[in-house]
Every structure is written in C-alpha cells, then in structure tokens.
C-alpha cells in the first residue's frame, strides 16, 4: 500500500464527560485519549462494557460532543468529515428501514446526497456483489436472516465509497457460525477496497483475528491502556486461529487487561 | 365439535341475558291511567296531570305558554321533555301533551302514515281560550339589515303576504306546492296542516277574523311580551336585565309592513338575492313563502329568494344574526330571548295571529 504510513485519524487529549443524573456532577466517559490510526489499517477498539469504546467511535463520527481535546481526520474536524460524508458507519443492529427493499435501503445515503439514478443503480449492484447479496436486492429486511441484514448494513455503509468505515460491534448479535463467515467476508472486502476500518468489539479473538492493531481500553474513566500490534500475515483465514502465534497474541491482549479487574 | 358446543353455550348465554332484560321490563307493574271525562273542567284536568308530573312540552323555548297556564291555576310548573313525536302521549307516559293544532294534533287524530288514529277520542286545552296565548310564526330580520335595505324588506313582505293570501284562499293547492318543493311530510298530512294554518293566519286570539295578512296586533304583542318577561328565565344577569327593560318598540317595527301594504307593489330593491330561514322542517306551516316562490310573486318584486328549511339546532335567530340569511321565521318569544341576549333583531310582520299550541288529552 502506497501511503499506508500516513496518519488518517489523529486523536490528542480527548476527554468526554456525561452529566451524572444522580448527583449532578459529571461522569468521565473518556479521559485523555491519544491515538493515531494509519490510513488503510484495520484497528479494533477492544474493552468491556462501559469502557468508552463506543463513545470514542461516536466522537470520531461526530455523533457525540466532546468535552476537550482534538480529533482530526486527515486534518479535518469530525464535523467536516461527517458533512462531506467521508465515513460509513455500521451499528450493532442493522438499522434497516423496514419499509424499503434491500436495494432501496442501500440507496438511501446516495439519495440523501442526491446522486443521479443511474449512478445509484450502478453502485448498488457493485456493493451488493461485494457483500454477496446480489440475489436479494428486491427483498424486504424482514425476509432476510440476521446475518444477511447486517451485510445490507455494511453494503449501505460502503455505498458512498467512504475512506473510513466505522463499525460499532457489528457482529455481536450474531451466532458464532454467521459471525465467522462475516468476519472472513469483512476481511476480503477490506482487502478489496483498502478502507481504513475502525472496529469496536468486546471479543478478544475477533479483534486479534481482524486487526492490524488492537487498542485496549479500560473503564472508570475510559482511557487507552495498551495498543497491541497484531503482526499476523495477510490474507488471513480461519485456520490461523489454530496457530500458536494466534494463541500467543490472544493471551498477550488478555494480559493487557490485568490489573483492570480485581 | 368442541367449538360447536362452545358456540351454542355462548348463544344460549346471550339469549338468556337479552330475554331477561326484556322480561324485567315487562314484569313492571303498570298503574291505572286516568283518562279524562269529555266534560271535565280545564282546571281538574290540569291539576291531575300536573300533580302527577305528566304534562309534556318540547322545551327549547316552546314551553312558556304551558308554564303560564300552569301558573294561572297555581300548579307546579315542571314538565316532561316531549320528543318531536307523540309516542309519549301514545304510551301514556305523558297525559297532557303539547301539540300544534296544524301538526301533532293532526297526527294524534288522523290515521294516515305517521298518524296515531285517535279520531274523536282526544280533546284539548286551547291557549287562546285560556288567555295565555303567545304569538308564534312571524317574519323578522336584523335591525341593521332593515335600516340599510328598506325597499328589499318591503318587497319581501309584500310578496310573502301575497303568497299567504293566495295560500289561505287555496289551502289544498298550497299544500301540494309545498309537497312539490321537497317536503317529505305526507300529502294527506300536508293538506290537513294547510287547513289548520289558514285558521291561525285568519283568526286572532279573540276568535275574530283577520283580513290584513301579516299585521302586527299591538294587544297580542303586548300580551306576548308580558308573558315572556314573566316566564323566560335567563341565567345571564345581563340578558335578564335587558329582558326586564324591553319594550314593544325594541322588538317590532310595523312601518315596513304598513308601507309595503300601502304600496303599488313595485320596489327599488337594494339587494335582490335574499334568503329566508324557516323555523322548522319544510311543511305547510310555511306555505305562504312556498306559494310566493312558486307563483313568481318574489320575481315580480325583483327578488330572487332562497328558502332554507329549519329544524336544526342552530336557531333561526342565530342564522339571521350572523348574516348567513337575510330573513327568518320564528316565534315572538324566541325573538325576545335572542334580543335580550344582545342580538339586534326586529320583527317586521306577524303571520300567525293566534297561538297554535294546545294541550291534548285522551277522553274516556
């Protein structure tokens, strides 16, 4: 990758506070987070519930107001990034519009920015093929399985061909078999499209399997406690999970949590 | 099979409930009703019905003559709300029922469609005989409208009275005209009504014949106003004071009628398209207006008249006052009440010269 070393997302001294409903004070959701994410890399934000990983993702997506610090995405503020539609986002639930067909769900972002119809059709065909749902374009969401619905969500995020893909625990609600299949598919999509992917998860194996870097977050207050580089070869397949190297990395990541929970 | 059993059970349950409700209604002990001797005195009949609380009236401003009559004999003045049919009289829940000579009385006596067929087995107390008569159907308009359109008002009075004159001379033809204008009252009842209305238009409260159609009789008006002041009870103290202070000149102006009748029948009308709001449903009660329309009397004076039937809950006084229609037909007592409430309305002609209200009872 030609410019793989350029920093895509740079976070310095990020703090996010929430008002505390019980005693009127503030809760620190994120405290002094510093992070640099390289272009074209696959980075996981890993941590238990309440560690602020989703808050961090939402801050980058400009869905969450920050209290202090700087986030820059290729030198732009998150708001500018959002307004220029430079990232795609995938949520934990597929968030599909039940009254729209699969094709029209994927079309929605393009309708919002007002792409011409032929362009929309072309891109929908493209991303449908990418996620392997070409046959299902005319179906309604409720006619698809959970895994297929999540693929539609991914396809929709890819439709505008953004540079960054933000994924908030996209596979956590799926069964193990579907999850593995989608992980493989996600890797192949990433390989083909060369996006920068920021992936929130609470699953250690998943983060190790997918990522270049695993950012380990710890709670109360939410902060970065370690960044583990995953040097596994690419492309990866399921067999890699059986290797000792994989097991060692998993255990390394797990150890980085030591001391967080007594 | 199981479902069938259930449904049969349900049905039986339902039927039992329903039939027990009906049976409950039937088993109620029925009291003896007192019908009255043909020669019984008015006082004895009224006393009996009033003490039993079985005098009926429609209310809604139709009750003042009945209240006056009951007061005259020192009787309690509460009455039952009578529906606009005679079922209550028929089933004896009302012993002394209000009836208009030209309408309900005919339904009670006659046996055509909608009638109850009592024939001569009923008799009645007449408000005119008892000295508590109040004037009924008149013609009125907004005072402001009359002042601004005097020629239109005169033209409308002139043509309408011509219609009444013809209708009273030919009641059967008039009844037919009303029927053809869309009234759904049966032709037989319409004919009966026309005959009775003619009597009210051509006889005064004393029983004398009236020849000048629509004349405002000062004495009868004075009696109406005085009874109205006594029996119209207004909760609104502002309106009650206005009623207290009201004089004949506040509610009627004979000059339009007098000038119209003295004229040659040609007018320089200020407003050609006018409408008249009737007090009740289209029927021979208003035959004069339908005849005037049918015979072209309105056209002759340069008016294009629309007749709007009444019978709804928005009173004719409101309709005229809000400017929705130009003229209206109402009872003088209703006009007085509206005037007391602050509506500046003016009577311009008095079509019915005596009260058409009677209290009907069954005779032995």
């Amino acid at each position, binding site marked *: 990758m030609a410019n793989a070393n350029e920093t895509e997302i740079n976070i310095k001294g990020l703090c996010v506070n929430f008002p505390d409903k019980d005693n009127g004070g503030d809760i620190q959701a994120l405290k002094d987070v510093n992070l640099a994410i390289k272009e074209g890399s696959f980075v996981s934000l890993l941590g238990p519930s309440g560690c602020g990983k989703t808050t961090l993702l*939402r801050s980058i*997506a*400009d*869905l969450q107001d920050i209290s202090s610090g700087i986030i820059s995405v290729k030198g732009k503020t998150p708001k500018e990034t*959002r307004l*220029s539609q430079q990232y795609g*986002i995938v*949520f934990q*639930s597929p*968030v599909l*519009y*039940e*009254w*729209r*067909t699969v094709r029209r769900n994927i079309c*929605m*972002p393009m*309708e*919002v920015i007002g792409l011409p119809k032929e362009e929309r059709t072309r891109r929908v065909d493209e991303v449908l093929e990418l996620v392997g749902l070409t046959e299902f374009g005319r179906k*309604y969401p*409720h*006619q698809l399985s959970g895994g297929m619905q999540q693929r539609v969500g991914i396809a929709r995020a890819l439709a*505008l061909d953004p540079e960054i893909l933000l994924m908030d625990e996209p596979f956590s609600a799926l069964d193990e078999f579907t999850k593995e299949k989608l992980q493989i598919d996600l890797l192949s999509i990433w390989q083909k499209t060369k996006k920068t992917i920021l992936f929130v998860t609470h699953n250690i194996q998943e983060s190790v399997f997918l990522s270049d870097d695993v950012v380990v977050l710890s709670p109360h207050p939410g902060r970065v406690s370690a960044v583990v580089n995953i040097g596994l070869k690419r492309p990866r397949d399921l067999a890699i999970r059986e290797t000792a190297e994989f097991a060692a990395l998993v255990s390394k990541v797990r150890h980085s949590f030591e001391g967080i929970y007594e | 099979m199981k479902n069938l059993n259930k449904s049969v059970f349900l*049905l039986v349950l*339902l*039927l039992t409930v*329903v*039939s027990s409700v*009906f049976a409950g*209604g*039937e088993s109620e002990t029925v009291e003896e009703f007192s019908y009255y001797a043909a020669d019984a005195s008015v006082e004895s009949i009224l006393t009996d019905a009033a003490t039993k609380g079985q005098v009926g009236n429609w209310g809604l401003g139709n009750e003042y003559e009945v209240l006056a009559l009951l007061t005259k004999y020192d009787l309690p003045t509460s009455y039952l709300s009578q*529906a*606009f*049919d005679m*079922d209550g009289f*028929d*089933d004896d829940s009302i012993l002394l029922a209000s009836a208009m000579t030209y309408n309900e009385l005919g*339904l009670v006596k006659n046996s055509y*469609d*909608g009638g*109850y067929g009592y024939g001569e087995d009923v008799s009645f107390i007449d408000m005119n005989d008892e000295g508590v008569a109040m004037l009924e159907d008149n013609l009125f308009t907004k005072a402001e409208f009359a002042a601004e359109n005097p020629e239109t008002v005169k033209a409308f009075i002139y043509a309408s009275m011509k219609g009444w004159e013809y209708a009273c001379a030919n009641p059967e033809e008039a009844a037919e005209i009303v*029927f053809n204008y*869309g*009234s*759904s*009252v*049966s032709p037989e009842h319409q004919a009966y009504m026309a005959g009775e209305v003619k009597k009210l238009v051509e006889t005064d409260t004393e029983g004398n014949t009236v020849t000048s159609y629509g004349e405002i009789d000062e004495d009868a008006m004075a009696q109406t106003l005085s009874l109205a002041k006594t029996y119209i009870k207004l909760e609104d103290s502002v309106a009650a004071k206005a009623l207290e202070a009201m004089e004949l000149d506040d509610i009627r102006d004979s000059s339009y009628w007098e000038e119209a009748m003295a004229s040659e029948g040609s007018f320089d009308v200020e407003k050609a398209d006018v409408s008249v709001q009737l007090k009740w*449903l*289209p029927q021979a009660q208003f035959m004069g207006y339908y005849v005037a329309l049918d015979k072209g009397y309105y056209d002759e004076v340069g008016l294009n008249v629309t007749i*709007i*039937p*009444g*019978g*709804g*809950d*928005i009173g004719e006084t409101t*309709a005229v006052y*809000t*400017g*929705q229609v130009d003229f209206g037909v109402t009872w003088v007592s209703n006009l007085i009440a509206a005037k007391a409430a602050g509506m500046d309305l003016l009577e311009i002609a008095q079509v019915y010269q005596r009260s058409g209200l009677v209290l009907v009872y069954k005779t032995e």
Partner: protein
Amino acid sequence: MTEARKNSLTDKLVIIVWIIALIIVWEIGASVVEKTKRSPQNVLPHLSQIVESVFSDKMVSNKQTAFQIVITNAGITLLRAGIGFLYGAGAGFLLALAMHRFITVEKATFPYLMMIQMIPILGMAPIVLAITQDINKSRIIIAAILTFYPVATNMLDGLKSVEKEKYDLMRSLAASNWNIYTKLLIPTSIPYIFSGLKIAAPMAITASILVDTLQGGAGLGTMLSQSLKHAMSIYVFWQIVFFSATVGILSYKLMSFAEKIFSPHERAKGAR
C-alpha cells in the same frame, strides 16, 4: 387449500355466525316490542320491515322513495365527511410535525387538543358559523376538528418511536432536515398515521351526520332528525342507522386497504 386460506375462511364463518346471532337477538327484541308497544316501528321494528322499506317503491316525498332519500342525502353527507376527513387528517399531520419539531408547541397545545374534543359540537357550531358565514363550510370544519385528534396523537407517537440509531445514521450522512423527515420520520410514522386514520374515518362519518342536524337542508343527519320528528317515514331513520354503520365499517376497511398500498413491506410479510 393452504392453511392460511382455511383459517381466513373459518374467520369469515365465525363472523357470519355472530351476525346471525345478533339478528336472532334483534328479532326476539322486536317480537317483544311488537306485543307491548302501540307503535313498535318507532321502538324496534322487525328487520324484515326495514328491508321491505328499502325495496318499497312508495313515495316518501314528492319524487323519492325512502331508500332514494337515504342514497341521495348520503352522497352529500359522505362528501362533507370526506372533505372534513382530508382537512382533519392534513391538520393532524401538520400539527404532529410541529409538536415533534418544537417541544414547546407540544407542551403548550397538547392539553388544549384534549379540551377541544370536550366542547360539544353544538357549542362550537355557532362560532364556526359566525366565522365562516356558511353552514356547509362550518359543517366541514367541525367534521375536521373532530377527526384531526386521533391522527395528530397517533402520528406524534409514531414520530417519537423512531430509534436513536436511525437518527445517528441520518446524522452520519449529514442529511438535511428535509431528508430526515421525508426519508426517516414520516415513513416510520406511516403505520401510526394509519391507525389514527382508521379511528378517524368512521368518526368523520358520524361527525358529518351529527353536524347535518345543525340546520335544515340536505344530508343524512337532517333526514334522520326529520324522520325522528315524524316529518317522514320512520323507516328512513332505521335505514340510516344501518347505512351509517355499514359505511363506517367500509371506511375502516378502506383505510386498511390504503395502508396496504402504502406499506408494501407489510404485504410481503403477509405473503411469506
């Protein structure tokens, strides 16, 4: 025969049985009334008498039979109901949007929407009449006032039911307000709007019949009250009772049908 079709067939059968049961109850009542009342047709006539009156060619007014009176006047009333319904639904729609957009509007107006529903039509009518100067416009406006409430409240519920993630998605796309409303909020509230419309449609018809009685003229309500006042055959009244119930039910069905057209995904669900 598929299982689904078999089920819908038994459902229909059940309803038919119930209707028959109702008829039996009615007839028992009518027989009792016939024996105890002098004018049973005014209280509870036999159904056969009502049906007979529908097909009778006896003229009730100079040109029309009882049934012709019902049909011609029904046209006028239903037209008013339809227009009132459209205005009411439109007003409810806009008000729900306003209440959703501005919390102040919702808080300030919501209690009054309830109170307006408490004002009897008779109280409203003279004011509306004084404003419009036209009884027919007043009738339409009052029918609209009576129908907008269920649409407004249901749609507001619908707008509030939108999930947070769907907002986030729209925000992530930097969607304009117009896009948020047309692509997210309004489509989400469509099922809610329709449940409001399903309540409002029969209400518009009964309201329209009720406002007919405000003044004479034409319309089902006017004929109903004339018939009750014995100015015409009492069977006109009975026919109108059945006619209005039938049309009310049909209006509900019409809304369900329209809902299906507007929500193809629901249709797909049914077909699965």
